[in-house]
């Protein structure tokens, strides 16, 4: 195995492109080192990207944020204003692993590892976040939800790597949330998770509602057809129940050591409900705050 710690994006691209065999990017290393230890992967090349200028920075861009690929969970959550801007992504990021893991884990790693149970992918998906990808053909952008293409598989091509994650600007009365279910309160992998992004108008009527579910299918499930159902409506129990049912029935989970099909499908509906209520109250608070 070769370990490299280049100083520029271009060097990373050429190393990745020129090395035969398995190449892995080292940002936080919290997935790749575990996989190496357990023999799941035996890379020929490890590229530590942390020396690349800007890769560990958070920038405010066009009313949104650009998060460098090597920004860790604790750096994200300690960045002033970011938690308030996107409580949903912040809580998803914060739920990954322990305090120790928080010092290392990255959004880019979580996305590229492509686990169906990844915490941040649903949260990034509902907010329509994008990634900036550098590769042999230069820079390109894609939606986060297009990166994982199956358990452990991503859509990056040979020579490509993620340099940053874009959290776009959001409308005035909008907010998000992320809730996951785990048997333990910490140090666990999501058995089911739900992320919600909601935008209200001044009368608290729903203008946009996105829901994504994690760990209930090989890929994140972005619930379709919800916006038609909720547009310009008040959120009420009946509506929530309907959405909850849609979510439960949109699941295509498996039985495994972490949960059953029945459990995951049912709890997906429960978490969807709870995440909507949470995001809705957060968006509502913004209206009240401005009204005051």
């Amino acid at each position: 195995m070769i370990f490299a710690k280049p100083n520029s994006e271009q060097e990373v691209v050429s190393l990745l492109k020129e090395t035969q065999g398995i190449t892995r990017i080292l940002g936080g290393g919290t997935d790749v080192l575990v996989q190496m230890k357990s023999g799941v992967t035996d890379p020929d090349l490890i590229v530590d990207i942390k020396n690349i200028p800007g890769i560990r920075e958070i920038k405010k861009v066009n009313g949104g944020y650009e998060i460098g690929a090597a920004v860790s969970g604790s750096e994200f959550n300690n960045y002033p204003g970011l938690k308030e801007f996107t409580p949903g992504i912040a809580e998803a990021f914060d739920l990954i692993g322990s305090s120790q893991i928080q010092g290392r884990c990255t959004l880019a790693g979580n996305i590229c590892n492509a686990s169906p149970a990844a915490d941040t992918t649903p949260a990034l998906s509902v907010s329509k976040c994008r990634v900036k990808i550098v590769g042999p053909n230069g820079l390109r952008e894609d939606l986060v939800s297009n990166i994982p293409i199956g358990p452990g598989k991503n859509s990056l091509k040979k020579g490509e790597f993620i340099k940053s994650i874009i959290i776009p600007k959001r409308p005035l009365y909008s907010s998000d949330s992320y809730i996951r279910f785990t048997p333990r309160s910490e140090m666990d992998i999501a058995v089911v998770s739900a992320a919600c992004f909601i935008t209200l108008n001044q009368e608290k009527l729903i203008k946009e509602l996105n829901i994504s579910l994690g760990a209930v299918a090989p890929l994140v499930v972005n619930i379709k057809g919800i916006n038609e159902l909720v547009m310009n409506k008040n959120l009420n129990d009946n509506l929530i129940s309907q959405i909850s049912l849609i979510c439960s029935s949109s699941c295509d989970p498996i039985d495994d050591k972490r949960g059953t099909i029945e459990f995951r499908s049912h709890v997906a509906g429960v978490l969807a409900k709870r995440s909507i209520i949470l995001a809705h109250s957060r968006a509502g608070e913004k209206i009240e705050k401005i009204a005051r």
Partner: protein
Amino acid sequence: MDQITPKTTKEFKIVGTRPLRPDGIDKVTGKAMYGADLYAPNMLYGCLLRINEPHAFIESIDTSNAEQLSGVKSIVTFKDFIKINPDNKNNQILENCIANEKVLYDGHAVAAVAAVDLSTAKKALKLVKIKYKKLPFVITIEDAMKIGAPVVAIGKKNENIPDGYSDNVIQYCSFGHGNLEEGFKAAHKVIKRTFKTPSVHQGYIEPHACLASMSNDGKADLWCCTQGHFNVRSICSSIFKMDNSQLKVTASEIGGGFGGKTTVFIEPIALALSQKSGHPVKMVMSREDVFKATGPTVSSLVDVEVGMKKTGKITAARAIIRYEGGAFPNETYELGAQSAFAAYDLDAVKTEAFNVLTNRPTQAAYRAPGAPQSIYAVESVIDELCQFFNQDPLYVRILNAAKKGTKSSYGPTFDDIGLKATLEAAKNHPHYTSPLKENQGRGISCGFWFNFGGNTCVSLNINFDGTVGVVEGNPDIGGSRSSISQMAAEELGISLDKVKTVIADTNSLGHNDVTDGSRVTFSVGLATIKAAKAAKKELCKRASKLWGIDEDAVIWKDGYAHPAGANAGNQEPLSLEDIAKVSSQTGGPIAGHYEVNADGAGVSFGVHLVDIETDMETGHSKIIRYTVFQDAGKAIHPSYVEGQMQGGSVQGIGWALNEEYIYSSDGKLQNPGFLDYRIPVASDLPMIDPVILEIPNPGHPYGVRGVGETSIVPPLAAINNAVSRATGIRFTELPLSPPRVLKAILNKQ
């Protein structure tokens, strides 16, 4: 047998206080050396090749390619060991370390390599070619017991197995007394349920590790983390047909054991690799190996039937217990059968127990082995009966509690025991009457454990400067150096800082049994007190010489020799230090010894109270409040007694809520890691409130009882009863994981 009257609490000066533990600074600064912390010059790293099949016949092992790899120094398979009698228990232990003809469980080792570094050793393992034939396997108790089931090992069956079972059912026992039929007839309600508990692992944070060095003249040194280095010596010297004296085993500091480090898993392998290579060999297990090939406890399938009158009086009780402990025989089923109804005073009671072999890792003892599973079943049925009659569950337990004079369900008549006092303490505690909110339930369970004594040696040396060295032979797994030093200082009447307790290697002291059965503070304490008494006798003798009076005219009091009796004179009392300083001139060094196979550890009872809140939409249960009541005998260092009560409770909480060995349909373990095995983390828990009841044990001079094990017994049923009450659904299988609980909730709706 001398009759001992325990001291009362008031008389103690050092016992019962909370001094800083003597090994504490080493343990908070990283200096303390655990199993993996020793390195030797010219040392090799050893590792084991494991086969991921539950049951397979080994056709051939070809190590030739691995031997060719540069840096590989020795390779060992079962054939490299001297043949010992297959019925010898130590042969079974060896066959568990490294497979003989068959792979008996997923992760069973078949070959070992020692090489100059770990990565070379691992590379070499990949070059070892194993040819094997897969065999049909059995994982569950139900499957393994059926006639026609694949047989794990032939010829293991005892003479008393009833007909109608497969050869995997190897042991059977029953206990009890009275007329069950009449008893059940007299009941107003009889409830019969079947309960299941999974295999769970001890979960110590330190993986097994050792460093072995054996020379070709047959002498060997072994450093390892173990609960009993004398036992390691017995096992290994038997396997290698060595004299005990030629194998010196030194116990490292030990990073948890809970019963799981009472046997060996890698030590004989490391010795063999060292013998063959001529180098010291270090072996450290990976966490995956720890889960796959060490521990766990037995899994269980238990039928319980209890009859009760509407007054709450139990009229009859029976249990049929089936324990599975993997591929080799064990005795845990007997302990389960004996402890099931130990908390109750019953006229008619019967327990039967079967021991079943399966293609799973061999069970190792786990804190009160066998008791949590059967008592979980019993305490759950009793709680259901209380609910049925709308009777207060503590009232019912007090009504039926075993007490002095009760003929126990396992035979003997109880002497002084503290169950009733423990139950009363729970009833009077504010926790018991505090209000509960919606979806919350309160659970109660009794627990019981025997506690043992066992072989124990202590040497207590009075140094020339008046300080004292206590030499004992049990690894300090949770603060025992402190309690032993406290008892020595108390008995000698000197200050604690004058005493240092060390743990001797196997050549420096006589045999000491394993640190098990909650025996250390009891037995080593007893031996320490007796050794101190012997030293005091000698100190008095020296004083008598100095004073020129009769030996009988000197007594020891509060750290001083005093002249006593009519003609003794008025000499100024002599301190221990005074006498020690001139001991060279009065006859030589002074020491006290005591060697005993101790009995009379005294049974112990606990009662746990727990409040749970269950999320009815997800099935998730959260512990809201937890209180532990235990008859601990005299608490030498109350903080460490509390620590045992708290730690055991949390292990029980893990067992009740999430921990389990999960097998796939192909017989392979699915969760051999901390992530998916899910032991409780700090944020899962509230404070665990310990209430110590100091009911002195008449069998110990200071009234000490075993403490460590009882606390893991009650949590299983306490939590089961709490979740059952919170949800209105009676549960009969652990763990109460969210999918299981939610399924029951949805079925009910």
